[in-house]
């Protein structure tokens, strides 16, 4: 279903972030971050508000260019081979941006076509992803009528519709009710092994329950990357670092 992009190009990490910094004017939002993510891993990027989580994710998706350093996804440099890199990424921004004037099916088909799927493949991909995120009953609904929970499902569906290797989620449980938060956690855990998931959060418990590893950011610096299995008390680790 995915457009051909020289499969099997890499043996190492599917996401490589090497010495990346981002300056806005004179202010550094991200400073010299180096981080590798393995295929099938769920990585939680944890940090307080303003720590550079969103900027880091935006550079990974190609929305922002790094001031220095390099990032690659599936072996493709996000700057020099940005089209190829973007084909391997699905991205759910924090604000869940959707086209309100469209219906759910229309929006998902548009996003699938934009990612290079032909009309028939797009139609099949939309049906498949709608079933995956339990959207089937709302496919004909106008997006403007959806609740926050359903908007989030649509946002996740558009990110998965082209079957990317890497799913990037920026604060995926923001604004959801407790049941939706639990469902989202289960959904992300369900993706582990099949896709690489990088999710940002400022909630310790969120990362603790979902991630295989946690990367802790503060004021744009990467303070630590730990395996959750080796971190019995994330709260204590976070407090000791920050």
């Amino acid at each position, binding site marked *: 279903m995915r457009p051909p992009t020289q499969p099997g190009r890499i043996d190492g990490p599917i996401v490589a972030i090497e010495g990346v910094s981002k300056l806005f004017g004179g202010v550094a939002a991200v400073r010299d971050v180096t981080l590798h993510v393995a295929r099938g891993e769920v990585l939680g990027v944890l940090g307080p508000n303003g720590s550079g989580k969103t900027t880091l994710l*935006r550079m990974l*998706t*190609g*929305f*922002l*260019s790094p001031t220095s350093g390099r990032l690659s996804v599936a072996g493709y440099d996000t700057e020099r081979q*940005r*089209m*190829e890199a*973007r*084909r391997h*990424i699905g*991205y759910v*921004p924090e*604000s869940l*941006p*959707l*086209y*309100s*004037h*469209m219906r759910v099916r229309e929006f998902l088909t*548009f*996003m699938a*076509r*934009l*990612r*290079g799927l032909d009309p028939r493949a797009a139609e099949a991909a939309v049906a498949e992803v709608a079933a995956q995120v339990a959207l089937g009953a709302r496919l004909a609904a106008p997006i403007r009528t959806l609740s926050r929970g359903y908007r989030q499902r649509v946002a996740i569906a*558009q990110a998965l519709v082209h079957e990317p290797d890497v799913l990037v989620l920026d604060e995926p449980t923001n604004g959801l009710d407790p049941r939706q938060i639990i469902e989202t956690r289960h959904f992300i855990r369900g993706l582990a092994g099949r896709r690489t998931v990088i999710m940002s959060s400022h909630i310790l418990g969120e990362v603790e329950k979902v991630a295989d590893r946690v990367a802790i950011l503060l004021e744009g610096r990467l303070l630590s990357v730990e395996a959750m299995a080796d971190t019995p008390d994330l709260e204590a680790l976070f407090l000791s670092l920050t």
Partner: protein
Amino acid sequence: MSALGVLCRKELHATFTSPIAYAVAAVFLLVTGYTFSLTLFFTKVANLTYIFHQMYVLLILLIPVLTMRAFAEERRADTLELLLTAPVQEVWIVLAKFLAALFLVACLLAASGAYAVVLGLYGEPDWAPIYGGYLALFLLACLLVSIGTLASSLTENQVVAATCSLGACLMLWFADSAAYMVPAPLDAVVINLSLIGHFSTFVSGSLFLSDAGYYLTLSLLALFLTTRVVTDR
């Protein structure tokens, strides 16, 4: 090119589901229709020169309203992030927005072609100025839409986008007046920037490549700058 087609479809859908398009179309056709009827009844002359000049003013006033949403709305709603993280060249995104707005203006001009048909049915108009006038209006629309798209790419506030676009268009309109304050040989350059100077020759039935080149060059420049603004992140 497939991505351009997908984006154009989305932009056309957004254009024609917005009430702005219908408001602009209603005002344009109402005002030109009213003036056409009055002019025809009073002068009994089968030409559209007066109407073309009125359309020129209307396009300068209405196209900024039409294009103000292009990027400003995408920025406000954060949907630009979706487009710019998809495997699509930024230039296609810009072109799709430009072509969708231009298509709407072309539809309005085509609808106003009814006036020429009426003249053809009941009179013997000189067709050269009519063809020239419509070509001039289309080229003018290309330039105004590209300026509006550029203004919209610079801000997330639609009113600011429309105001900046209107200001730029008015400055171009009155550029020849400013030429009197500029010493030679710069005055010739300023005169040649004037929108109306290049428009009037078309409407009089004279076609010069330099006039068409003016509109096309400035349109391409504005589209290039828009692409740079969108790409520069």
